[in-house]
């Protein structure tokens, strides 16, 4: 049930380009599936990576090198994904490292390794072959030695020595419950291989990488997208859906505790750093203590989530929900959000003020209330402007200064240089003591295309 892609590390939107002197050493396989391309590369003796191009047509290109700086280089190409054999790009080892294929060629005491093909200064019985990886003088572990990858040294006085390549599970330690772990462990605590996150077999799941871009669900590496106690993965064993991974915990005070981003009387983003003392839900129901299992049993033990501030019964967000929440003290209501906690204002300080609605503002503020630099009124990127010096010649639309050419009642604004934000109001506030008048009830207004409802519908649909 394992995919051949499990042996590869994917680089999205990347292409490996060989150097001119070895550019002819690639193999083209048009039109085959990604899985087939990977399988054939694994079976081929001189394939270590492949470009999988999907536009304009599908082409699988087998390559004899990975991105090691001197034999090939990686370029950006949105129509292509690069897959490199893990064993050639990994800087750490799994198990005893028999499959290590990195390029370290010095021993732990700094001695240079002897070439494997050479018998001098130390004679030995190993002979390089296309399959045993005994390349040049790189550290290897052909005999499964306990000490991991090793080599004969060029020091006549020292026959061989370990190269001290770190274990992947120790190479990167985790803080708290490892939500930001981005290491390369790809086996579980019981040695089961992990399933790729971008595959739905043998286990169907909801954690598709494109739906959780912030969770770095790369390849089949252990990750923690759901605030579990430790990083975990789905396994290639059809009988075991998911299992935790064994990754070293960083020693000392978890870094997160020192982060100044903690807030107490409002929350930012999803509120993971909220540390205030609100302990009831929006509807006024008291929260259950985190260290209690009644009336609701739950997995969020304060000692397991040591960095989440699960004190008393305060509203917290240990699992990446939309906002701080808690288990409630009502048996029939398990959890509830604490959305009554204010969101911290993310506007920057106002840098100027305007009168009335700001239509006559002629200042030089050129930043939005979120601190984004304004786009020039005369430019058309990143946003095509419908309002510009041509359409509003007397609105003083100079440079990228905040202006109010259309008399927007909410004040001066500008197009922004953020491609995702077309326009926004500026870091300018109304001068003290001014208010825009509110209309009194107008004459009856007639609507026609909206707000119509067929109340007879309700009975038929609920039946």
């Amino acid at each position: 049930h394992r995919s051949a892609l499990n042996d590869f590390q994917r680089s999205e939107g990347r292409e490996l380009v060989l150097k001119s002197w070895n550019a002819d050493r690639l193999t083209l396989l048009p039109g085959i599936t990604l899985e087939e391309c990977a399988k054939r590369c694994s079976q081929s003796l001189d394939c270590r990576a492949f470009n999988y191009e999907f536009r304009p047509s599908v082409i699988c290109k087998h390559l004899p090198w990975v991105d090691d700086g001197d034999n090939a280089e990686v370029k950006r190409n949105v129509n292509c994904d690069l897959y490199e054999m893990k064993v050639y790009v990994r800087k750490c080892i799994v198990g005893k490292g028999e499959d290590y294929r990195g390029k370290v060629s010095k021993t732990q005491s700094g001695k240079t390794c002897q070439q494997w093909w050479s018998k001098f200064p130390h004679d030995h019985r190993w002979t390089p072959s296309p399959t045993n990886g005994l390349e040049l003088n790189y550290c290897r572990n052909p005999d499964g030695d306990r000490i991991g990858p090793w080599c004969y040294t060029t020091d006549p006085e020292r026959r061989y020595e370990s190269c001290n390549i770190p274990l992947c599970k120790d190479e990167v330690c985790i803080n708290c419950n490892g939500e930001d772990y981005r290491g390369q462990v790809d086996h579980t605590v019981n040695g089961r291989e992990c399933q790729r996150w971008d595959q739905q077999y043998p286990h169907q799941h909801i954690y598709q990488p494109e739906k959780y871009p912030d969770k770095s669900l790369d390849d089949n590496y252990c990750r923690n997208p759901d605030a579990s106690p430790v990083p975990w993965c789905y396994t290639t064993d059809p009988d075991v859906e998911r299992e935790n991974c064994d990754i070293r915990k960083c020693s000392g005070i978890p870094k997160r505790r020192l982060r100044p981003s903690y807030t107490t009387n409002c929350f930012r983003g999803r509120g993971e750093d909220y540390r205030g003392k609100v302990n009831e839900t929006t509807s006024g129901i008291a929260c259950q203590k985190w260290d209690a299992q009644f009336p609701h049993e739950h997995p969020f033990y304060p000692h397991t989530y040591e960095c989440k501030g699960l004190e008393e019964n305060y509203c917290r967000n240990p699992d990446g929900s939309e906002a701080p929440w808690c288990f409630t003290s009502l048996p029939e209501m398990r959890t509830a959000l604490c959305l009554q906690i204010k969101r911290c204002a993310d506007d920057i300080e106002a840098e100027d003020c305007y009168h009335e609605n700001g239509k006559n503002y002629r200042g030089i503020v050129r930043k939005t209330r979120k601190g984004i630099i304004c786009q020039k009124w005369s430019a058309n990127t990143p946003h095509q402007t419908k309002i510009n010096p041509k359409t509003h010649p007397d609105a003083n639309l100079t440079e990228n200064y905040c202006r109010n050419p259309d008399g927007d009642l909410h004040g001066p604004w500008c197009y922004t240089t953020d491609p995702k934000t077309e326009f926004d109001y500026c870091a300018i506030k109304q001068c003290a003591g001014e208010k825009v008048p509110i209309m009194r009830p107008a004459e009856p207004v007639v609507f026609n295309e909206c707000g119509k409802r067929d109340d007879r519908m309700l009975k038929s649909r609920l039946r």
Partner: protein
Amino acid sequence: IVGGTPGNSPWTVSLRDRKGKHFCGGSLVNSKWVISTKQCFSSCYVDLTGYAAMMGTLFQNPKEGEPGKQTIPLNKIVCGPSESHLVLLQLETPAEFNERVSQICLPPERYIVQEGTVCEIAGWGETKGTGDESVLNVAQMQVQSNSECNKYFKGRVRDNEMCTTPFSGGVGACEKDYGGPLACQNSDCWVLEGVIIPMRRCGHPGQPNIFIRVSLYVDWIKKVMEM
């Protein structure tokens, strides 16, 4: 919705997170845009990958293939003027209007809806045991003037907010209703006069309900849709 009954509100949508769970309400102000409250979103730059609006069904968790259900991914969020607590969400594809899905009317700019006007709120949120959370609940209420409302809230109700009358039995919006509509009747049409925002308690007996007054932001809504 506390103190409501199952009802029909074709402009009310259910906002779904990446796990497909309902987390807030919203209203269709045209076929491509839904209005809701900023309080439901972690930021104005939140990555909306996987988020969607579900409409055309009365059920919170409709069965696969239920006729009329439309689930449309969200692909853009625009935050309203400061203090508005509003966001506009763009649908990846236009909603299909039919007898189950329609857009709600927008009030005239800076219009104050008359005290006593009949309105209703709608949502799939918490009922606190007063109703069935598996279907859309609707509760009727009447507009209360800000001056009247400020007697109860000791002057804290601002101009950009509006109130509806309290009920001794307690009627109001609750968790996961936020962002949903306060729709008020105008002859045979319904107009979006308010957006539900979190309050200190849900459906508290004798407590008026507070909403963001949409008429103050109609110019912004139109500007975003035009831009």
